[in-house]
């Protein structure tokens, strides 16, 4: 299977310069191998550091239990649940799985309309400021959300996307992405639900133009 690829750039914080990267329109075995062989050990070491530093557990990454192999095993191959990943410097830097069927818009004026729902999105451990100082790459989240918006446009959902943000990421979705915060969702682990309207999608794209 040939995986479509979009050329992108991430910003290398250590070298203080942008680096060429690839946005893969899929999560392949290579990404899962990177998750097992690179992400999990780094996350484990980071957890040990947090534990030794007596950092409160509520400040630990809430996604630390995620198992991307299980997620991929369940969802891979389902047309309704495409995946995306970013590769830079030979390693997977971020992954995302979306749903294009089950979720509808909730925001006033858009209710019931189709959207791309971001089921899971995660940065590599070394790109996360709460785990590594300094983190290695910036820009992973913006590119993956841009991919979700592009898919939404491709499906004629006009850029509408929705997601349940982990508490530590609320600010990113509210401010950087400009999504509307519809509040804590008691049916989704009380995570805050964010939605992007077609207008907000255009504004998000224009932010970097």
């Amino acid at each position, binding site marked *: 299977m040939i995986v479509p690829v*979009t050329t992108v750039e991430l910003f290398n914080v250590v070298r203080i310069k942008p680096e060429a990267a690839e946005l893969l329109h899929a999560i392949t075995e290579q990404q899962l191998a990177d998750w097992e062989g690179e992400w999990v050990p780094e996350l484990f070491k980071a957890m040990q550091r947090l534990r030794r530093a007596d950092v409160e557990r509520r400040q630990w990454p809430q996604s630390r239990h995620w198992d991307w192999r299980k997620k991929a095993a369940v969802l891979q191959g389902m047309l309704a649940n495409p995946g995306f990943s970013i590769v830079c410097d030979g390693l997977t830097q971020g992954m995302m799985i979306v749903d294009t069927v089950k979720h509808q818009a909730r925001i006033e004026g858009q209710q019931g309309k189709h959207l791309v729902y971001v089921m899971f999105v995660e940065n590599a451990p070394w790109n996360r400021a709460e785990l590594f100082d300094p983190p290695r790459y910036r820009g992973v989240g913006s590119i993956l959300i841009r991919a979700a918006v592009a898919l939404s446009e491709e499906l004629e959902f006009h850029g509408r996307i929705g997601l349940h943000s982990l508490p530590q990421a609320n600010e990113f979705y509210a401010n950087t992405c400009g999504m509307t915060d519809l509040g804590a969702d008691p049916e989704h682990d009380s995570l805050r639900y964010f939605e992007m309207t077609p207008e907000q999608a255009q504004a998000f794209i224009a932010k970097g133009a």
Partner: protein
Amino acid sequence: MKIEISREWCRRMAQQEGDAEIGAGRLAVDPVFGGDPGFDEESRIEGPNVAFGRFVSLMRRRRGMSLERLAQDADVDMADLVEIERDPYHKPELRTACQLANFFEVSRSGLMQVAGLAEMKDAKLFDEGVRFAARSEPTAKLTPEEGAALEAFVAVLSERN
């Protein structure tokens, strides 16, 4: 599908994104039971520890013991005990689970399964663990319902050797 993203866009957005956390998705907040269809297996593997932590907590409180006291009397690591009660995903040390089974006088093999340290062979035990976790809420004092839930679960555990 074709996606075109310019290098300039990537650079500007990387600057705006900064060091922000970006994680999103369900099954990320403890405790977790249920979830999206198709993820039952994941919940089933991770779930029993909710019951284990709750069980240890209620048994300790029923005896009016502090965490420190229980760690001392059962001869288990204090840090492991704290994790057991507070983090449903924490995998306890094998020795800790054995010591706690001895201390609380319940079946070792049953508690191992509930703790996620042994394969959950007994579907009834799994169901009882889930029911127990669902019934009991951590409050300052045991309610009659909690007491009843605890008794019922102890009885199920005690049946298995």
